[in-house]
């Protein structure tokens, strides 16, 4: 029975990981930019949720579109104004640039919110479900379900909307897309913004589960790396598979090896996957 409980915990965690990583993966795949700001944007989403709850009493789930919107606007502007200038530069340049931007943002958040871990405690928690020995906190499950819903909505957006098709086209072949009349610059910025939206939204959902601090940004960034590499880069299904896989691996790893080895395990897996199977578990690229 204990294994079922661990599996359930892992799945709940994995759904959130998928949502954390999907925007990061999209930006990497479409723009060929590793956005080191991603972790800080998730933390920003959490703070927005905390602020909305403590000040106005708005439930974090309801803050999702607001936080997503704010982070969308911020990341869109950053892409248009700054990152776009070096979009064709070597990997080293774009990495260094987003690292520098992250230093600025993270420092700003540290100054504004302080480093200490804060907790968003819901006044009316939804309790927990329990059946056949498996206990599931309802808030956690709801957060995971919302995370999966958001991820699937992104999937539909990419598949069915005009803008989504344009994003996929740019990912497949930037030059061909430009020739067919896609405004690549605009798509780049929108994609970056969508990555930001997903980060902000994920931050809201995480706020009711994990303590909130600017120091967490690197943890989330690390998870995003691992999920991307496990599932395969730049695809929504890849992020879901990678997220669930990481969630399950971490919760079983914590049980068998001890929670202190979770990071070592995740990053070792990352290196092994990079070397042995760089296309990820799904073994394919693209959105189809």
């Amino acid at each position, binding site marked *: 029975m204990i294994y079922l409980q661990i599996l359930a915990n892992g799945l709940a965690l994995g759904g959130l990981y998928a949502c954390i990583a999907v925007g990061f993966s999209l930006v*990497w795949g479409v723009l*060929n930019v*590793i956005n080191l700001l991603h972790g800080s944007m998730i933390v920003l989403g959490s703070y927005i949720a905390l602020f909305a709850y403590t000040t106005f009493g708005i439930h974090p789930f309801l803050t999702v579109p607001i936080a997503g919107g704010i982070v969308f606007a911020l990341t869109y502007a950053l892409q248009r104004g*700054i990152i776009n*200038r*070096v979009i064709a*530069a*070597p*990997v*080293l*340049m774009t*990495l*260094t*640039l987003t*690292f*520098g*931007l*992250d*230093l*600025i*943002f*993270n*420092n*700003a958040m*540290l*100054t504004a919110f302080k480093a200490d871990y804060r907790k968003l405690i819901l006044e009316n928690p939804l309790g927990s479900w329990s059946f056949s020995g498996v206990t599931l906190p309802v808030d956690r499950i709801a957060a995971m379900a919302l995370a999966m819903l958001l991820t699937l909505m992104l999937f539909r957006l990419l598949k069915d909307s005009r803008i989504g098709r344009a994003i996929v086209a740019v990912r497949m072949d930037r030059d061909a897309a430009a020739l067919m009349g896609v405004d690549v610059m605009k798509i780049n910025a929108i994609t970056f913004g969508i990555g930001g939206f997903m980060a902000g939204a994920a931050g809201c959902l995480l706020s009711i589960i994990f303590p909130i601090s600017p120091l967490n940004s*690197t943890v989330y960034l*690390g998870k995003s*790396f691992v999920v991307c*590499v496990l599932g395969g880069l730049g695809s929504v299904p890849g992020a879901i598979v990678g997220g669930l896989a990481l969630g399950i691996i971490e919760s079983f790893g914590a049980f068998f090896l001890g929670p*202190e*080895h979770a*990071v*070592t395990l995740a*990053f*070792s897996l*990352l*290196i092994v996957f*990079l*070397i042995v199977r*760089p296309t990820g578990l799904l073994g394919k690229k693209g959105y189809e």
Partner: protein
Amino acid sequence: MRDWLILGVGTLLFGLLALSGDTYLLRLGTMLAMYAVLAMSWNFIGGMTGYPSFATAAFFGLGAYTSAILQAAQMPMAVGWAAAGLVAGGFALLIGLPILRLKGHYFAIASLSIGEILREVVNTSEEITGGGMGMNLPLLRLPPEVQAQAFYLCMLGLAVLTTAVAILVHHGRLGFAFRCIEQNEDAATVLGVDTRTFKTAAFGLSAVFSGVAGAIYGNWVHYIEPLDVFDIMHSVKPLVMVLLGGLGTLFGPIFGAIVFLALEEAVWRNFLGVHAAVLGVLIVAMVLFLPRGLATSFEQIARRFRGKAA
């Protein structure tokens, strides 16, 4: 020949600084020498060979811990330092073989992960490393000024050694192979360059001196902890210095280290609470406005002036 002359004069000038008993100046000098070592080390793999490595912190931390563990077992300091270089270099060769098959972002992430893994391994191996509590290193029974002078000279010696190796590599076959790989790895292979061996050599070179620097640093500050010596900033700062000074150039990394240290010191003194943000602004400005480094940009400006004068 000119390069050896520059190294000789530079060594002499910086060596004279040791005579000053000013501990603040000596502290800055030691930092500068350490930054120069890290920047030049990174330049072997990141600048000359073109592989965006984020593993400097891993080598630095590995060196620091290797030396600290040996000294905790009553080994002399010098043995600890030598072992630090060997272990870091050997580790780089071992890990380099698989991860140097990766390119671009994938290599960057893999190299970054190595530091994360090592940090966590050190964190969880409490019996040997003290875990998150860190390790104390033996205190030297010397007056503080003498210690400051001694560590400055040691770090300077390492910087001189690193520069000497860099000069040899730069003008030799090894550096030529690195540059071919940086320019076009596939074409290099077909011209007979054994890219795997040379890439691994570059990675190894970048590790040896970083490892020794970590070991000297540990004795200098008497205390190391995983969060400090495996800090990702140890991977990013050298890269920023090299970008400042000029990617793949010989003395660019040293020049970049000087500029970087001056800026960092000014920021630390005046904007302590937001020093990370100011560093971030510096990085962003550099990538946007000086992508080819200060030295190269100066050269271009100078050339433009000369062109006008003619």
